[in-house]
């Protein structure tokens, strides 16, 4: 089965005043058509940077990509002046749901204007290869009907009226529903959702996640979903990838990820979840700065299983049956009583 997204050995950094910050170090990730992949890690582990790298929206002036490839729907997203290719893929084959639905709308334009401007360029009814912004009244009518139907599908009442509203007139949950609608409207094959529920009230979070999962599954759209919330990952993901300090630690299908995690970091992460009958355990130490990342496995200063080898050699992703771990000393025993979390 061909992958819709593949990230291979990606390494990139930002030029800062204190030197190069190696934010991503040999990251691997793939998403197959129709599946929902969770990208999990603590804040600052490089999740958002990876999402932006895939979309090609990192600030070019300070970004240095030293290694690796990103292929998205057959297009090479790092092919330098191939901006055109990436531009054609972006918003079409791959769409985006932002972290902050409050600030991600332009406050000065009506919701309808912002959606219809998207449809003008990214509607599935637009002829592939069209170069002009020509918008025939016929396509416009069809697009508008599709927009109304989609707003209905994301359970927003009175879609017609909503199109005439300004962003500040909507609640956070409503805005994120519009964002989901906009992500689905171009008929993408992959949606990148960057912590889509972090900015929302807890009560709304579950509704939005369930909605996203249902609509994506119905339409066969793949989702790459970044989050620091393991519970959310458990709710909606088919597979989960864990990142630590810019390195991929472990990738596994949901059941074996939560049931038999192999990477010591994953285990500590799961054990740090509050659970009945057990005191949550914190992970000692702190995430290293990308400017002064430790050599070898970046987790070794905090790892209970670390050996001399871990300090010098970077472990490669290894394993089978879709469960791969980047660790010299993986744990092979199942974790007790987590699967019913």
């Amino acid at each position, binding site marked *: 089965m061909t992958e819709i997204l593949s990230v291979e050995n990606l390494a990139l950094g*930002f030029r800062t005043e204190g030197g190069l910050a190696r934010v991503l170090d040999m990251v691997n990730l793939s998403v197959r058509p129709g599946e929902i992949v969770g990208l999990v890690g603590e804040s600052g582990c490089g999740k*958002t940077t990876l999402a932006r790298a895939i979309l090609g929206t*990192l*600030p070019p002036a*300070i970004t240095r990509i030293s290694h690796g490839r990103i292929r998205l729907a057959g297009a090479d997203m790092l092919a330098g002046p191939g901006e055109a290719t990436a531009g054609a893929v972006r918003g079409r084959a791959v769409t985006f749901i932002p972290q902050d639905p409050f600030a991600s709308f332009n406050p000065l334009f009506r919701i309808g204007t912002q959606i219809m401007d998207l449809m003008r360029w990214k509607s599935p009814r637009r002829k592939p290869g069209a170069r002009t912004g020509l918008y025939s009244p016929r396509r416009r009518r069809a697009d508008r009907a599709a927009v109304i139907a989609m707003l209905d599908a994301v359970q927003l009442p009175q879609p017609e009226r909503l199109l005439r509203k300004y962003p500040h007139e909507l609640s956070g949950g409503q805005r994120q529903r519009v964002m989901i609608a906009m992500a689905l409207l171009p008929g993408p094959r992959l949606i990148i959702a960057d912590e889509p529920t972090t900015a929302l009230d807890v009560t709304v979070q579950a509704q939005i996640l369930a909605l996203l999962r249902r609509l994506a599954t119905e339409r066969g759209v793949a989702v790459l979903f970044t989050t620091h919330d393991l519970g959310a990952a458990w709710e909606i993901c088919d597979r989960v990838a864990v990142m630590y300090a810019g390195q991929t630690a472990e990738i596994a299908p949901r059941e074996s990820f939560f049931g038999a995690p192999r990477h010591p970091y994953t285990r500590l992460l799961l054990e740090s979840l509050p659970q009945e009958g057990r005191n949550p355990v914190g992970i000692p130490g702190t995430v290293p700065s990308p400017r002064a990342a430790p050599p070898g496995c970046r987790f070794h200063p905090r790892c209970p299983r670390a050996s001399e080898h871990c300090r010098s050699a970077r472990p490669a992703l290894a394993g089978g049956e879709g469960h791969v771990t980047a660790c010299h000393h993986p744990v092979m025993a199942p974790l007790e009583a987590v699967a019913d979390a």
Partner: protein
Amino acid sequence: MLRRLARDRAAMLGAVLIGILLLVALLAPVLAPYPEDVWQFHTPRRLLPPAPDRLFGTDRMGSDVFSRILFGARITLSLAVIAVGSAVLIGVPIGLVAGYYRNGFSELLMRVSEIFLAVPQIVLAIAIAQTLGPSIQNVILALSITYWPFWARLVYAETRSMRNEVFVESAIALGASPWRVMVLHILPNIASPIIVRTSIGMGATILTAATLGFLGLGAPPPTPEWGRMIAESREYLPEAWWYALAPGLAIFLTVLGFNLLGDGLRDVLDPRTRRGGGND
């Protein structure tokens, strides 16, 4: 922080210009080829064009323009420092008190400062300077009276937002006196915008002072004030083109120096407007 500033070439240029101005003001008697020309006339030598022995030519009294420019730096600099200094000394305490307390009195203080901002500063300054009579002291007085509201409003706004900071509230809760909180806790934390505002305010004040001199409201005639020199030169245009050139450039470079330094300081001290990209 100073290193950041040192790397900003524009700000460094500003600092260099101000440095030159300071040196010139201090060493005017040494640097000036004809220091006595500040007071003395040489009518036979009047309105001579620039030459190696009189770089910027001579004026209507036959005095060396270059020498007069150098001595003018003293007037400009002392005038701006004293005027802005007094405006800061009036404005900052008023802003602090008005921002710290929330009562009718602080409201009144801010309304009063608004009155001063309701017409262009130059108009008020001209009116005050004219009323008091032409002298350097009165120009300084006029400028400080018209410019203090800028600092008062700035400090007011900053103090207002500081008032809700945890460290200020805890200082109050621990029983620190209002005076102590204002001077030891709030003031150091709002120093950056005050410094930036002061540097840019120096430039504006020098321009206004020069305008007052140009309109004949500054020091009386023999004083080598730059604005007045330009006013004197008007009737000798177009023949004596050099006459206005030097004092105008002197004003320009001085104001430029303070503005560039102010800009650079703002970039370094105020993270909200800092240049350069960020991520995540």
